[in-house]
């Protein structure tokens, strides 16, 4: 079920009213668990089994790791958790990718390998990372295993974050699920405003930009350099507003239900270096990759060369996590390389120059990365770059609604950077909050694109 469809609003209203009527933790958690499985089954009930399998395996593995008396036993249970989680992720997400890659390599020598018909279960990348973090944290002794299967199952399947994050760690959510939250009007109002802001970001900005971006990227060679430049910038806006909009909705929904999720974005396009960008973009994933991949690989403790290798490996795997395609791998490699270079030159002048130059170069690096991320093939990357270099002529297309959406994007950043930043929280006792809220609701009804546009990150 998507957050932007009418059915979801009805579903959520029912869940919201019902959940605040229940007095005990178990009642609440059972209701939320049933609602979460229904939310997931709305897309395809058959994959609920996979979710349940992952939940049971990790619940059992977590308890066994805690109860184990020897290091060897602990390792075995951890290995089981890793195998089941990474195995299912590998099969559903990467099986065809590896078959296709092998096919491309083996075809010249006469081998023919056919791909399988595999449907990628929505959210598998997200809930796999969550459950992995649970067992690894228990293994590391940082977390106590959950006593309640209901609580743990709800942690894995909690619908606001099930399909596209934020990647909430067990240590952050399980303690919240262990108590009955108290109703707070202030928190509920904050949750409502966060959901509304997320919807505006997704529907009014990202989807409008997406209409333009999709057409240009489908045939970049047909459009003029100026149009392709605009489309690349628009894509940067689309992916940010789409994903941060989703995260805002998820955070707001959780708030309305009485729970807190970590922040996922902190105005990443204000970053003055690639490293800063990654501290502001998809923060819960960056944190996950740092703690469960980069640091276990050795982090920065084993010399410059090894640190660079670790960075490169982490970012490459991060790229592959986003999607099973070579363009995603390249995107990861690109960011890995840039981070290595930045690290090498950290103490030299290039990063100490003017802020505007640092910002512009960071944006250039990020934009180039988005081209790799958005294109389906290297041929398409070449076409986009060719048009960006004004090598060919084409249609000059400047869609006003995409320009309005970009202006909104700039306005949001400008207000956030100004001394009026606090106004963006829309305090309940202010007149302008009522005006802004009404305008946002009207705009969502009037100006949402007619038709259904899924969230970009659902495909990952």
């Amino acid at each position, binding site marked *: 079920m998507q957050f932007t469809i009418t059915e979801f609003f009805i579903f959520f209203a029912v869940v919201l009213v019902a959940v605040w009527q229940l007095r005990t933790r178990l009642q609440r958690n059972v209701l939320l668990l049933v609602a979460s499985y229904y939310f997931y089954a709305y897309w395809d009930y058959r994959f609920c089994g996979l979710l349940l399998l992952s939940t049971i395996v990790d619940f059992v593995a977590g308890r066994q790791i805690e109860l184990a008396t020897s290091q060897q036993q602990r390792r075995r249970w951890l290995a089981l958790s890793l195998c089941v989680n990474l195995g299912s992720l590998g099969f559903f997400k990467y099986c065809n990718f590896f078959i296709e890659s092998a096919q491309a390599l083996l075809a010249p020598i006469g081998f023919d390998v056919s791909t399988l018909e595999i449907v990628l279960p929505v959210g598998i990348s997200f809930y796999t990372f969550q459950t992995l973090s649970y067992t690894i944290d228990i293994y590391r002794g940082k977390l106590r295993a959950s006593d309640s299967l209901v609580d743990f199952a709800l942690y894995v399947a909690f619908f606001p974050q099930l399909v596209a994050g934020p990647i909430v760690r067990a240590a952050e959510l399980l303690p919240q699920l262990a108590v009955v939250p108290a109703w707070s009007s202030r928190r509920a109002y904050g949750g409502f405003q966060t959901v509304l802001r997320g919807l505006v970001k997704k529907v009014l900005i990202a989807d409008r930009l997406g209409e333009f971006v999709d057409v240009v990227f489908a*045939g*970049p060679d047909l459009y003029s350099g100026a149009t392709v430049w605009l489309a690349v910038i628009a894509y940067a806006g689309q992916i940010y507003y789409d994903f941060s909009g989703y995260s805002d909705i998820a955070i707001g929904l959780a708030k309305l239900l009485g729970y807190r999720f970590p922040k996922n974005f902190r105005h990443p396009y204000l970053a003055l270096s690639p490293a800063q960008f990654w501290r502001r973009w998809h923060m819960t994933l960056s944190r996950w990759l740092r703690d469960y991949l980069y640091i276990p690989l050795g982090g920065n403790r084993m010399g410059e060369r090894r640190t660079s290798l670790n960075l490169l490996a982490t970012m490459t795997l991060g790229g592959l996590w986003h999607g099973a395609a070579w363009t995603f791998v390249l995107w990861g490699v690109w960011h890995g390389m840039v981070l290595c270079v930045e690290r090498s030159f950290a103490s030299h002048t290039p990063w100490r120059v003017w802020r505007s130059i640092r910002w512009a170069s960071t944006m250039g690096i990020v934009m180039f990365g988005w081209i790799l991320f958005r294109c389906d093939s290297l041929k398409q990357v070449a076409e986009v770059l060719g048009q960006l270099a004004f090598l060919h002529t084409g249609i000059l297309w*400047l869609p006003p609604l995409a320009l309005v959406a970009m202006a909104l994007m700039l306005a949001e950043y400008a207000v956030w950077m100004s001394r009026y930043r606090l106004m963006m929280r829309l305090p309940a006792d202010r007149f302008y909050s*009522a005006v802004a809220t009404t305008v946002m609701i009207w705009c969502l009804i*009037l100006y949402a694109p007619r038709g259904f546009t899924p969230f970009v990150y659902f495909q990952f």
Partner: protein
Amino acid sequence: MQQSRLISRKIVARWICGSIVGTLLVLLTSPLFVRSYLPREVDSHRDAIVLQVGAGYRWRSEGYATTIIGRWGMPGKSYLPANHASENSRVIALWGDSQAEGVCVDDREKLFACLERAYAKADEQVTVLPFARSGDDCNDWIHQIKTVESAQGIPEIDMHLFLVSEWEDWSVAAKTPSEVIDPRLNWASANLPAAFVQAARNVLTDGQTDNFRKLRFSVGPIAKSGKPNTVVGQDSLASQEAEFQQAVAKQFERLCKATDVPCVMIDAPLFPTITNGIVVWGPTDERRSSAIHRLAERNGLTVINVNNSLQKAAMNGRWPRGFHNGRFGEGHYNGFGNELIANQVVEVLTQKSEADQQTGRRGD
């Protein structure tokens, strides 16, 4: 306690005032982005439902124009020249669907205006009456032609000109159109701001089909509806094509029976088009077009094919269809496309009439 009540009352008052101000702000700015909704009325001269005469019809989703609805519901034709019935002046009735209606372009860029300008350049005084309506097909045109030709007040028509963007509009089964005005929609269009009507439409109807929303609460996956894909054999294709051409032939015959006035068809297919980033330059089945052209000629109808001009223009970087606030290479003809079509039509018709005159003189 009293203070907190006072604060909450204050907050409630602020929220009520704030929502009113917010709504007013949206209403005031909405004409920039929201199309207008006009009540419809029956025009007795055409025996057809038309938009309210004299009103301005605002279009915003593809193109950015306001159309003044003229007499007999003619979009964009807000005046008729005094000399339209003079001896030297000719009157052409323009028929078609939304492509010929052209609410997405300014009145001076609509096809009828481009035709009048092109004729004026060729030193001919021509008045074009735009009778095209969105969603019309040949049943509507044939029915209206009969009523228009016999109606009092409408000048005598010298030529019927059809903008045909899809020959499917001529292959429908023959029937007399029966149109009904929806009284609720008419009331809403007449009495409510367009933003409210649009909001209700967005909430109640499905964006893709425009039908009333059907909510689904059952779990997925959704069963794939529709017929299973079947391979159509060559024989079956040939018989389908034969049926199609028979239907078109019948409608051409109906048209010829309905009027004695010369009829001209502009074959303006929706090409070139951009589909998934690929340019499709022309109809995949050229044979169909040729067969229909022959059918038309057999019935004494003139066909002007403008596809080549449209293709050439697109090759030179100027797309005849599409807008900045829509997409290039799809949708409706823009001002440039209308002008291109008009110029070619006038050129061909002028040459034809000169050739006819010469043949006539030789015959004398």
